[in-house]
């Protein structure tokens, strides 16, 4: 099985080579991404000039929240989003059938043959903002804190990939999954803000059914020593465990969905 992994870098190479067939469009797309996310950040800055605090969070703290969320999302989504969003199309056109006749893990093939280098734009914006915010927000650094930062970023990345995988896999059963992605992005936009500014019902949803609070609000609040609604002292372990646990759930869900796959047409 392990020698099989050697195929994955080749898949990535082939995908990048395909993308570079359209490299003009590629760089224009990246620029558009940076501008659009930059505009969101600018909006928050303007808001904070007027109100100074949002739910008890100041500008550098919110910039930390924004950049942590953007980085975790772009890392997680680069190994999942476009591939699983397009799974619906692969099912509808029957292309997935051909993939299922190959002696490779279907998920791995799908992910690595579409590894989205297009998230470079997000990362180019997120990393400098994150570094600035970590310094400006006066995080009290310790070894524990540094490990928590790295661990929770990884966990947040896994949460993103796992949730997207679970949504995408529904296309194997229902053929359509885009409506669920619309709901995902609805909640995802909320994760740019502290959890405590939302009504209790939304907080519960974002910590349980749509567990997106773990990609930003929970870990960043822990890092800043701020209280996390509902979770309290459990916030730190929850932020670290959410990723691995959701990955296990996503694997089980993927397998179940594949066993229920009925194809479309033909």
């Amino acid at each position, binding site marked *: 099985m392990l*020698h099989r992994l*050697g*195929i994955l870098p*080749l*898949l990535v190479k*082939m995908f990048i*080579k*395909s993308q570079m*067939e359209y490299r003009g469009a590629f760089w224009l797309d990246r620029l558009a991404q940076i501008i659009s996310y930059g505009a969101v950040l600018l909006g928050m800055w303007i808001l904070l000039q007027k109100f100074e605090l949002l739910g008890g969070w100041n500008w550098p703290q919110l910039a930390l929240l924004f950049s942590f969320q953007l980085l975790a999302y772009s890392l997680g989504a680069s190994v999942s989003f476009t591939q699983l969003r397009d799974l619906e199309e692969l099912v509808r*056109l*029957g*292309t997935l*059938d*051909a993939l*299922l*006749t*190959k*002696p*490779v893990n279907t998920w791995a093939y799908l992910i690595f043959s579409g590894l989205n280098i297009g998230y470079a734009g997000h990362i180019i914006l997120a990393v400098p903002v994150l570094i600035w915010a970590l310094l400006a927000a006066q995080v009290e650094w310790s070894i524990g804190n540094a490990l928590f930062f790295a661990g929770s970023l990884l966990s947040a990345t896994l949460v993103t990939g796992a949730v997207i995988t679970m949504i995408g896999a529904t296309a194997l059963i229902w053929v359509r999954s885009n409506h669920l992605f619309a709901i995902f992005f609805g909640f995802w936009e909320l994760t740019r803000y502290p959890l405590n500014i939302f009504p209790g019902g939304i907080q519960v949803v974002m910590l349980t059914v749509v567990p997106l609070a773990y990609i930003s609000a929970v870990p960043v609040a822990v890092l800043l020593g701020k209280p996390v609604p509902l979770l309290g002292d459990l916030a730190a372990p929850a932020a670290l465990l959410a990723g691995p646990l959701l990955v296990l759930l996503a694997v089980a869900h993927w397998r179940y969905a594949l*066993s229920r*796959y*009925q*194809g479309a047409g*033909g």
Partner: protein
Amino acid sequence: MTALIEARGVSKRFRQHKRFPGLLGALKTLVTTEYTEVAAVSDVSFDIAAGEAVGYLGPNGAGKSTMIKMMTGILVPSAGTLSVLGRTPHQERMANARQIGVVFGQRSQLWWDLPVVDSFTLHQRIYDIPAARYADNLKRFSDLLDLTPFLDRAVRQLSLGQRMRAEIVMSLLHDPKILFLDEPTIGLDVVAKDAVRRFLAEINRERGVTIILTTHDLQDIETICPRLIMVDHSQLIFDGELGRLRAALGSARRLTLEFATDPGPLPLGTATLTSDEGLLKHYLLEREDVSLVQVLSEVGSERGLKDVALHEPDIEEVIRTFYQRRNAAAAAQ
């Protein structure tokens, strides 16, 4: 002879939400918990031995592709047992995949934006094909299907015929024991169809690759497949040699006799007169055991016979007769 593929009472049913007519019906469809079951394959059994070439034929929606998808491990049968190379395909999908090749006429497995050869290289890695074997197969198949001129061209720049030839070559690079083809000649022009057919017949004959092919094009079956499995409304309705289908149906040969002078009405015992144009008379040879010599000796030499033409029924005619009789029988019940 042991069977490579064994199907025993295989069925596949799809569950669908019940659909209701009209606008109110559409709203009802959204919330209904009622299901209807659609049978795509019902109680189908057959054995396929190593080295056979089998045409799987039937009208749209008869369950051809569903059967291929079950044999390749994509779909799980609802009932019955299916064994391919001694395995249950959906349970050992990956192990099964290593020993089969699959070509979907309407779904490309090549990388659209990259040169053909890049997809082949990936295929080599996925299937662990030793370098020498790969080079050997690539050369041999490329020569046979004349692929060399466009191996380095991006797939999106190829014609449909070129692409399909490349798809078929790719599916054979790892020396599969069985090659499944789902409508491999669909949309191809006459020349490309002919090249594909001759190639498939050759690799079946020379390399002993077992071929299972679904098609609408009866010529595919005539050229490649001595054995025919026919399905209709999810059920198997015929399994055997094409010749046996002809004989069983009595799809008659047609005979045209041309005379120098009109001999008048000429009924024969060995053949049935169907139309009489005077100099040209058309007969049906309904019995398989009647030979042309017997007919000609009955006509005799003194009637001024000038020319003879015998038409074997083509496969389209055979199958049309089959479906017509079936439908007539169903209507009579």
